[in-house]
């Protein structure tokens, strides 16, 4: 069958020693930058792009892709250990991952994140290999009205992240949406809320905001406590997930993978969307929803498998249509062009070696990532033994360097510190930062798709009800809202806080 023929072609390319070496280098670098706050995969790829000029195209793409999906693995590490998401895809992992670490279960949390990433990544590639072309056509069905309604549904789902008050979560989502409007309006180019600060023109930086709201706020909170609360007091417990952990999280892994893959196909915010949608789904189907936010392993397994499945899925539109779903893939496309390869519908036919070689290298790379990351868990967990008076100033230092390093801008550092204070106040008054940051990420897409839809329909809102996918999303969203508004039903789903 074609599937195996292609797989063998691909594996024979991917397993050439030279390609293996660079695949390893890629995933290794990816893991590192995933762990370090600030330096993201986009920046790394653009720095390394010229280095690949001397290589054959396939090798170059294998290495660069390795960095892209390797960073997904690393990003969860800091979320779990110190409550600082390495990138937006791992914000949701903080919710339960960090709580697990505080209960001395950092090992199982990191373990399930690594296995979840591996399983979802690998399954994602298999699906990618079989279904790539038909899937793309589904993704293309999503026009502006469909995106808008999907975003609305996403925003409503966000409130299910709330550990306590759903109303407060909705308020946070509203505020996040507002913060997302800062910068040049992408439709008409008008500067909004920029106060003439050039750094604000492209919107507030997501990385400094995340580091502030999560990391810095956490440090502020801990300043209040006396030093005796060492995170794990030496009792680290298992390094790997126990059998019970596996049983608890097996369906979360499956659902996370499916949700991640489907949403990951959509250009734009699909990967981020998939993390919180999968988390919310787990919380809704769980028999004990109240344990979410207090170290539920499903709360780590679902978003981690979702973001990795989304990373695989993102290769579908990229390789088959030449459409990058996230900025990182835009650089990969640039790399393809630099190597004289035209991305697009014909890539699979014109360069089968490259296409299947890169896909096969992802299988290999995922195995490497697992082997690379499992032994690191012991090392990471030991980081938590470092006493607070030493660990916290170090985290603060890394955050400051990280925030500055993204654009070499002191404005980013100021944003981070401001968000640190904001995050501290939010925590104090029991508002949760996760809906805020997720809404912030979705906000620009929500707005442009709304305005674009209205441009199509000459300002008539009916367009959202005449498109079937859009209508479906809106119906689902209103059902969720009604469910939330009627007491009793919500308790059944979410449980008493």
């Amino acid at each position, binding site marked *: 069958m074609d599937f195996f023929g292609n797989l063998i072609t691909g594996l024979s390319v991917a397993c050439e020693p030279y390609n293996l070496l660079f695949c390893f280098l890629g995933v290794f670098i990816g893991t590192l930058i995933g762990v370090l706050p600030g330096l993201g995969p986009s920046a790394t790829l653009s720095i390394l792009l010229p280095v690949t000029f001397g290589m054959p195209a396939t090798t170059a793409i294998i290495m660069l892709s390795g960095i892209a999906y390797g960073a997904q693995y690393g990003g969860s590490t800091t979320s779990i250990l110190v409550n600082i998401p390495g990138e937006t895809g791992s914000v949701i992992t903080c919710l339960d991952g960090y709580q697990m670490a505080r209960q001395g279960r950092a090992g199982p949390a990191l373990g399930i994140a690594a296995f979840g990433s591996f399983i979802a990544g690998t399954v994602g590639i298999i699906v990618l290999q079989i279904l790539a072309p038909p899937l793309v056509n589904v993704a293309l069905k999503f026009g502006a009205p469909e995106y808008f309604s999907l975003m609305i549904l996403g925003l409503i789902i966000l409130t299910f992240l709330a550990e306590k008050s759903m109303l407060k979560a909705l308020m946070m989502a509203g505020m996040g949406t507002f913060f997302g409007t800062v910068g040049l309006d992408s439709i008409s180019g008008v500067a909004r809320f920029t106060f003439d600060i050039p750094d604000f023109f492209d919107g507030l930086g997501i990385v400094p905001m995340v580091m502030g709201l999560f990391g810095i706020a956490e440090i502020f909170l801990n300043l209040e406590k006396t030093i005796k609360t060492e995170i794990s007091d030496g009792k680290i417990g298992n390094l790997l997930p126990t059998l019970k952990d596996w049983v608890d999280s097996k369906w979360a892994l499956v659902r996370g993978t499916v949700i991640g893959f489907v949403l990951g196909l959509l*250009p734009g915010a699909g990967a981020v969307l998939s993390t919180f949608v999968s988390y919310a789904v787990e919380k809704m189907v769980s028999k004990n929803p109240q344990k979410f936010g207090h170290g539920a392993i499903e709360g780590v397994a679902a978003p981690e498998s979702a973001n990795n499945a989304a990373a695989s899925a993102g290769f579908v539109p990229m390789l088959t249509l030449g*459409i990058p779903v996230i900025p990182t893939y835009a650089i990969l496309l640039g790399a393809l062009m630099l190597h004289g390869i035209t991305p697009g519908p014909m890539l699979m036919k014109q360069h089968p070696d490259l296409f299947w070689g890169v896909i096969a290298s992802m299988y290999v790379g995922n195995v490497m990532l697992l082997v690379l990351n499992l032994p690191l868990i012991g090392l990471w967990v030991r980081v938590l033994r470092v006493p607070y008076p030493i660990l916290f100033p170090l985290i603060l230092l890394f955050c400051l360097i990280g925030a500055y390093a993204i654009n070499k801008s002191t404005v980013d550092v100021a944003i981070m510190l401001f968000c640190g204070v904001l995050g501290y106040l939010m925590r104090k008054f029991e508002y949760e930062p996760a809906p805020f940051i997720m809404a912030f990420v979705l906000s620009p897409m929500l707005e*442009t798709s709304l305005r674009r839809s209205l441009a199509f329909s000459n300002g008539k809102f009916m367009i959202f009800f005449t498109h079937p996918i859009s209508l479906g999303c809106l119906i689902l969203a209103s059902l969720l809202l009604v469910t939330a508004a009627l007491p009793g039903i919500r308790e059944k789903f979410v449980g008493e806080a």
Partner: protein
Amino acid sequence: MRTMKNLSAVQVITGLTLFFLMGFSSFTFAQDYPTRPITLYCAFPAGATMDVLTRALAIRAEKILGVPVVVDNKVGALGTVCAAILASQKPDGYTIGVIATGAMTYVPLLYKVSYKPLDAFTPLLQFSQFIGGLSILNESPIKTVYDLIEYAKTHPGLTFGSTGTNGFHHLAVELFSQCKGLNLKHIPYKGGAESIPAILGKHIDLHAGSAHIPYVRQGVLRLLMNYSATKRDPSFPDVPTLIELGCPDYPGDGMMVAGPKGLPEPIVKKLKSAFKAVADGQEFQNLLVQLNLPYTYKDGEELNKEAPAVTEYYKDLNKKLGIGK
């Protein structure tokens, strides 16, 4: 204790001397330029066509200049973020940038900028320019731009997607639509990554941008017309330009290497010859062909001289289109 104090005083003096020597060296010995790495700003995001070109320039210029040329992306606000940063740098030849010529001419007519557009830069050379194309799905019964004009006259409200409001893709098609008396509806997208899926998914009828080339070559899209172009694209000799249709055209941006205002003459000379050599080189020329970009070399002097006239030309066009500050 005494010796320690003396020592530190000596150290401070030595340190200060070294510091000043280092500070002055770049001014006093311009003929030795360059002695340290050069930063090359790029106004476009990593991975964009311009970024690819900037990096290709940098690697080869490095060999000629003998020092590292480090690309630093300063993205945003239609390239004015990068232009503003570049304009504020010391003119010592160690910070230069690849920016669009529009940063000197039409962009400041539309958006507020912090620099004086005509008096902020030392243009070194232009190496290429953006050309736009209007394309349609290949399966459409509309085969040529003349078919389109005919069809659109009886079917008002056809949509065209562009890479952003007031970008030259948008404005050139507006001019086309005005000139032929059509009623085309503009739908703005954020770059080709958004507008290409929109046409492939049949959400828009026409696509105005520069990301269409690979899709045209692979037979998914059909190119109807080129604009912001002075002559026909040799790769698509059958496709007319907007000017040929008897319409005014909105000139596209040039891509130039520039430094801040007041670069000393010897440095200008050195940089010009280095970058010209790279741009003329076979490898760079091949890259341009591959990206389907024209080689439109212009000397910095020429760019500087024509900038005021170009600005006036844009002012007129903007008035015609009813846009601008």
